């Protein structure tokens, strides 16, 4: 095995690709959270007899979420090319990749947030109602704060998945680490670049996961802290 990948040129490429990936994932995670969080809260509170009871809307949204989630990511990327072009003016490159990444991640975040909210003890909602809280106050002062440790873990999971997806958009010219791995590692037969890309992705996933775990634990006041 050659040690070519230690050359400054290769390292520079990997660094650039890493920054592209981070940028793509960070932006799509942020937008997906902005969309997924309220959708998740809505999914968790709009069932029959619930806080914002709207069973029809709940079912419709649930269907859209399920449909998006069951579409293979690579098909989603291709299928929404016209939409992507409309939105960012191009369908290739890092900027274009953010659109399918966000669309894939938002329903995922929504389902995870829904689960986190549903885990909140119904007794707390009852207590808040007894205090005269409005449904919105219940969401903002009870449900979200109580579910926050679980929501943080959900977002961590979503970011890790996005790292994987972002490597996949490389296959359709999306830029970032996946793109680098395919172009150099596969098409130019440089397995060491491929290996370095994989190592960087592993490190990123580890960092994201451990940061998320630590943050969630810090927020979780149900545990006794020393």
């Amino acid at each position, binding site marked *: 095995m050659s040690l070519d990948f230690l050359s400054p040129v290769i390292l520079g490429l990997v660094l650039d690709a890493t920054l592209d990936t981070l940028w793509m994932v960070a932006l799509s995670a942020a937008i997906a959270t902005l969309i997924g969080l309220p959708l998740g809260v809505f999914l968790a509170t709009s069932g029959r007899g619930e806080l914002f009871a709207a069973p029809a809307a709940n079912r419709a949204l649930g269907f859209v979420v399920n449909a998006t989630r069951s579409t293979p990511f690579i098909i989603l990327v291709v299928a929404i090319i016209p939409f992507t072009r409309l939105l960012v003016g191009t369908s290739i490159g890092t900027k274009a990749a953010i659109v399918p990444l966000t669309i894939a991640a938002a329903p995922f975040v929504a389902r995870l947030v829904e689960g986190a909210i549903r885990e909140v*003890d119904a*007794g*707390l909602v*009852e*207590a*808040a*109602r*007894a*205090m*005269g*809280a*409005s449904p919105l*106050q219940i969401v903002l*002062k*009870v449900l979200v*704060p*109580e579910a*926050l440790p679980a929501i943080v873990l959900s977002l961590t999971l979503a970011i890790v998945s996005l790292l994987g997806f972002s490597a996949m958009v490389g296959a359709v010219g999306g830029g970032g680490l996946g793109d680098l791995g395919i172009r150099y590692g596969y098409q130019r037969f440089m397995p060491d670049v491929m290996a370095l890309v994989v190592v960087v992705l592993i490190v990123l996933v580890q960092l994201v996961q451990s940061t998320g775990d630590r943050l969630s634990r810090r*927020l979780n*006041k*149900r*545990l*006794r802290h020393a």
Partner: protein
Amino acid sequence: MNAQTRIEPVEAVASAEPAIRFEGVAKTYPARGAGGAVSALCGIDLDVPRGSVLGVIGRSGAGKSTLIRLVNGLEIPSSGRVVVDGIDVSSLGGARLRQVRRSIGMIFQHFNLLSSRTAYGNVALPLEIAGVAKPEIRARVEPLLDLVGLSDKRDRYPAELSGGQKQRVGIARALATRPKVLLSDEATSALDPETTRSILDLLASINRELGLTILLITHEMSVIRAVADHVAVIEAGRIVEHGDVFDVFTRPKHETTRSFLGQESGRALPAIVRDRLRPEVQPGGSAVLRIVFRGPHATDPVLSQISRELGIDLNILSGSVDEVAGRPFGTLVVGVPSDPATLSRVQVFLAQRGLDTEILGHVS
């Protein structure tokens, strides 16, 4: 006096109107899935006088929680009205209902504290919900933590508090909006006896000092006895007995009430008697008679009188003198010779002196 740190007593309203009134209330939960409709409450008429403590006792599933949840509109009656402080709660909705709920505090069996907030934060929550300004919240929360004896736990999270401390936070939180009525749904059922005692003492002092009306539900007579002025016994959605705690304790009418009183002081028989007790007369044996001494008669020397005036000697099997709702009452279980003439002379003698008797059975 520092006006900011004082906890205002609820102002007395110059009307005889009860704090809470149930008028012909019924509640049926609609059928869901395979299960049919459940009639949880039926024909409930009940008043909770202002400033009093009414305890509702019943077994699991009797309808206690449904009853209490009607008071703050967490449930809507299927028919009838629930009137709190002159307002028909069952007819309200939306913002108006939320506003009324702020004048009704509630505490729960499992405390229902937010794990993400400290003791202070939990007590502040109802005030935040009511839109009270930060400095005012501070001025109200601190004395409340003081009142429940938790000033030093101000910044502790619920996970760092004991059950009793959590319920104290729950009580402070329920009082934060200065309610006129406090609802307690099995507030001590998850606590050990000693902690239960201290929580009940706290509720009693809140009732006394703030003049708060308390409606509490429980499945334990000891809770009723410790704090309630009035008691209602609920069974299968109906109130089967209702009255002054002393009267119900000393003259229970309904079978359910008796069984709840079963282990209360003076009512438990010594094992040696209980095991030999038979429903039918034992020839040559004794009838087991329970004599209840109420109030002024609690210390009458009736046994020696019976012995002297009737020439009948009674065999004392167990006895106790106790206090319920601040009034003394005694219970004596005696063996009386089984022959009908003797037994009836004893009963007549006791009845003439205003004492209640009950034949528990016979022993050989």
